């Protein structure tokens, strides 16, 4: 058998695996005799795109906010003042330990109502950012605390003050270490945004539910739904791997 050049080997494997996957899917559907009804589903395409755009927009907003929340909570957990440290530790544990569903319901119907904010989208974005921010805070904290004492000492020895040490030594090294965890969390955020439907945000999942009940279909809505998420999450993961390679300086 002739040897295949290594640059072709990977695309070839990918094609082969995709082919096998398609065949398996085809075989499964052929067996259950699923009656496709794409025409009815197609009528809802505009709604679908609207939902997708909303999911995309609110995810982007929540991502930006969640990084800020995560950074603030991380700083709070490392603060010298004990009350602040306790407050931030407690907040992180509460947010990470309870279901997002409950946070959204309590946050929107109780908290937001109490302070008279009635925009489910705004409240949803803030609550989602807090939930993911709590995870990010722990990812950031782990990355910063993994910077060795000898790097800190070297920073002091060349004459950096506390701020310069963080700016020139700790943060650049911590960013690289936090990168894989952070992108994983941002991918989760995109998928978790589907829960915002419980407070009445008509994002993608909600639109697909409407589509399915309107056209008496199910998979005709859910398969494109999965594809619509992958279109966003796969490039994000790919871009993160590229960034990681750019930052790779440790052997």
């Amino acid at each position: 058998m002739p040897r295949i050049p290594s640059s072709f080997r990977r695309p070839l494997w990918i094609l082969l695996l995709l082919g096998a996957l398609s065949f398996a899917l085809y075989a499964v559907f052929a067996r259950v005799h699923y009656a496709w009804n794409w025409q009815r589903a197609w009528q809802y395409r505009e709604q679908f795109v609207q939902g997708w755009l909303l999911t995309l927009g609110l995810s982007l907003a929540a991502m930006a906010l969640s990084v800020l929340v995560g950074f603030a909570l991380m700083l709070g957990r490392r603060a010298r003042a004990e009350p602040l440290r306790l407050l931030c530790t407690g907040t992180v544990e509460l947010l990470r330990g309870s279901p997002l569903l409950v946070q959204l319901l309590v946050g929107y119907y109780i908290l937001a109502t109490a302070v008279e904010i009635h925009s489910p989208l705004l409240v949803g974005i803030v609550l989602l950012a807090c939930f993911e921010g709590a995870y990010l805070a722990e990812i950031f904290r782990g990355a910063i605390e993994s910077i060795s004492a000898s790097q800190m000492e070297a920073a002091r020895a060349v004459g950096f003050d506390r701020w310069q040490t963080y700016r020139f030594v700790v943060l650049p090294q911590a960013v690289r270490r936090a990168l894989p965890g952070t992108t994983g969390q941002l991918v989760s955020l995109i998928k978790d945004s589907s829960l915002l439907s419980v407070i009445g945000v008509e994002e993608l999942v909600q639109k697909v539910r409407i589509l399915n009940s309107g056209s008496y279909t199910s998979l005709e809505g859910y398969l494109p739904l999965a594809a619509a998420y992958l279109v966003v999450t796969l490039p994000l993961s790919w871009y993160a791997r590229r960034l990681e390679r750019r930052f790779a300086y440790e052997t």
Partner: protein
Amino acid sequence: MKLEGHRLTKSYGAFRALDAASFSTGDEARVVALLGPSGGGKSTLLRVLGGLLLPESGEVRLDGEALPHEPAAALATLRCNGFVFQGYNLFAHLSLQENIALPLREVHGLAVVEAEARACELLERLGLVDHRHKRPAELSGGQQQRGAIARALAPRPRLLLLDEPTSALDPVMTGEVLDVVRELAEQGQQIVLATHEISFARRVADWVVFLAGGRVLESCEAPAFFQAPATAAAREYLGGLSKYR
């Protein structure tokens, strides 16, 4: 220079690394060697002398002037000195050149081109100029340590403090690094050196401070120390080190 320590004390938790350590060098000391068994307080004393660590009590005097304890003044003093560590401690995310140029710009206020030129000049002198765009992980231990020496020398430090600079290196790399230190000493750089390389210390040091158990047991001119150590601990230490060489 005249370097003095007066009743210096520094603890890590319950462990007393320095226990009222006092010594005074002659007025014209240039290369001071800190010798003594591991865990005896050499590294801690070196950091205290250079202002990298503040002692809990006691004071350091350089040419009669006490090192300040107040944070801003202590940082200013620290910035006059250069440090080299056992584990090199170059910044892992920066190229060799940037390891040197960044502190020059941010701490010593040099312009970008000046800092780069100074970094290249030092790397040239230490035979590393071809490696200047590499990151520390791409260099050998000896190259990293010479890079660390270049970084410490870049701001023309009053005092160069080296903490066991060759303990992590094989004999060939140890030779490379010691050559550099010897040249610096010959050119008149004021040096404080903690080391186990006795024959090297014998060759370059003009003053020896011998520590054990956090206390200074001997402080005298180097030839006198090597010919006739006054304490039993120093005799035992020197005897143990020269056993196999």
